[in-house]
């Protein structure tokens, strides 16, 4: 949590008070403004504040998956228990392109992005035929489907043993090697750049007409439909975007571990991603980073000494629903309102201003 504390302080400096605020306000609306510089600073600080850059990499990978889940839940009001479908297929497909076709890093990641978008559009297209609780149940059932597919295709996925010896090729473009990623630090830098680009892209998506429509669907689907928006297609598109991001993070995770375990595509992975999103705070992009960070750090601290630490996340979910529905970031915000006078980036995205987290329209 040290890193977050530092980042918060760093973020406060320019926008806290005085003349700096005007300049800052003008930056706020663009994708490069608002929290983006603060996130960039945080990304630089993270490997120094954490025990290892591998851990920092893991946080960013899960933060990417959490951002994708948040895009659906926090902005679209779509609770998906199928995110592991995309996470797992990204891990498997990128690894297989590298291992069987000898593809390089970028083609493998591209395969993951495309496969994630396509599979998510497919799952989305089937699931959005129903709304509300049925929708959630179907995403869960499709996750089970994907799990059994991966389990059955053990020639390709390694089944229970997982896919071993996943390579981490150097970053190369048109045959020119740009960087060797075999060291933990180099891989962190690569992941951090990708995360920052995705963070900016998501901010851009949310600020776009597409994002506003998505939020409108969340707030009142019937009204959005009456206004002439094809809400189903918007939801499917949101799924595709989210799936592409999740799949990319799955691919990065396989390269981090040099291993693609079956757990990647299990329902529990979907649960974990949802839990990170909710603990961090739905509808807030910084919350996603916070949620993934909290998850990875706590699991790293506790997994060794107490393998049953997951019981705490169960308790945390219940406590968050009862007392802190905005998640950790919501808690940070309300503390800032009370003591700091203002909330940074309050105008950032629709839901920060909206207060309580998103809820699907029943």
């Amino acid at each position: 949590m040290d890193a977050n504390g530092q980042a918060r302080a760093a973020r406060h400096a320019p926008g806290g008070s005085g003349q700096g605020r005007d300049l800052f306000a003008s930056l706020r609306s663009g994708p490069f403004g608002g929290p983006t510089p603060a996130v960039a600073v945080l990304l630089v600080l993270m490997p120094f504040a954490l025990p290892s850059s591998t851990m920092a990499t893991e946080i960013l990978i899960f933060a990417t998956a959490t951002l994708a889940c948040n895009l659906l839940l926090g902005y679209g009001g779509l609770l998906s228990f199928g995110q592991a479908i995309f996470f797992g297929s990204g891990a498997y497909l990128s690894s297989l392109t590298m291992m069987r076709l000898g593809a390089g890093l970028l083609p493998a990641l591209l395969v993951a992005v495309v496969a994630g978008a396509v599979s998510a559009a497919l799952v989305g297209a089937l699931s959005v035929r129903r709304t509300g609780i049925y929708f959630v149940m179907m995403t869960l059932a499709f996750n089970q489907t994907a799990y059994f597919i991966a389990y059955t295709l053990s020639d390709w996925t390694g089944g229970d043993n997982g896919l071993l010896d996943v390579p981490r090729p150097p970053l190369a473009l048109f045959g020119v090697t740009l960087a060797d990623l075999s060291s933990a630090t180099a891989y962190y830098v690569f992941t951090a750049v990708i995360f920052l680009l995705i963070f900016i892209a998501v901010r851009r998506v949310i600020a776009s007409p597409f994002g506003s429509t998505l939020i409108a669907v969340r707030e009142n689907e019937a009204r959005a439909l009456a206004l002439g928006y094809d809400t189903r297609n918007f939801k499917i598109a949101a799924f595709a975007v989210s799936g592409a991001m999740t799949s990319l993070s799955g691919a990065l995770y396989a390269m981090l571990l040099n291993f693609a375990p079956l757990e990647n595509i299990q329902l529990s992975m979907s649960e974990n991603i949802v839990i990170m999103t909710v603990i961090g705070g739905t509808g807030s992009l910084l919350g996603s980073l916070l949620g993934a960070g909290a998850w990875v750090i706590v699991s790293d601290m506790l997994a060794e000494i107490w393998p049953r630490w997951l019981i705490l996340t169960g308790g945390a979910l219940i406590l968050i629903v009862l007392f802190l529905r905005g998640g950790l970031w919501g808690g940070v915000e309300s503390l800032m309102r009370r003591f700091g006078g203002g909330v940074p980036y309050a105008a950032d995205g629709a839901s920060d201003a909206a207060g309580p987290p998103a809820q699907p329209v029943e």
Partner: protein
Amino acid sequence: MLYLFQVLNGLGLGMIYFLISAGLTIIFGLLNFVNFAHGAFFMLGGYLCWSLTELTGNFWISLLTGPPLVAFLAWAAEVTLIRRIYRLPHTFHILVTVGIALILQETTIMIWGPIGKSIPVPDGLQGVVKLWNFTYPTYRLFLIAFTSLIGFALWYLLERTRFGGLVRAGSESAEMVALLGTNIHRLFARTFALGVGLAGLAGTLSAPIRGIHPFMGPEVLGIAFVVVVIGGMGSFTGALLGGLLVGLVQSLMSTLWPEGASLMIYGTMAAVILLRPYGLFGRA
């Protein structure tokens, strides 16, 4: 003969799925609440069956005491926690019950260990029944008969008793039932306990056939969701026919294509959704 064998297996399995899904559906119907911990309570039913059988040496005692214990736990959870969140949107119901499921799963591992267990088929039902040249395990026949009996009792409870009348009236309008002088809190708590108790009963009954392990909750939950997506949430008949359909598909496929048997369950769901988006018996 092989097919008759698998059809009977499918019926037994299907009735287990029916009990689980009926519990889910009854809770949803009255309380408008989605219980994502349903699979975890099913698992708990299996583990209580194991412990009680170890303790007393008698399966029948554990069948009589295990499911009520699960129901009691569910009642306690309703009274202390779940009734506080009814007014929140479904997303929060799901998050809280996912939390409960995680707590149950991890507690189970702490108490009983991470490795699965098997439960012996109870005394008196161990052999096979012979009809002409066809043999079938006695316990599985008992399972079909007993679950049918439970299904009938459940139908009677819901359709012919005052309690059932209140549950059905409450499903239409809980507010009106409360205004007419029924203690709706008590009714909700009892219905939640009943629904979860059915999952516990299903867990107990299936334990001697399929064994138990701490991670069976999500799998069962997924199947229950398939059943209610196929049959329609809140529909008792839908849960019965959906459960039987899924059970039959799974057991017939396990002879035709063993690796893909579980996969075909979800394939069935996808097919139903494509052809009839609101399920076989669902209302829009």
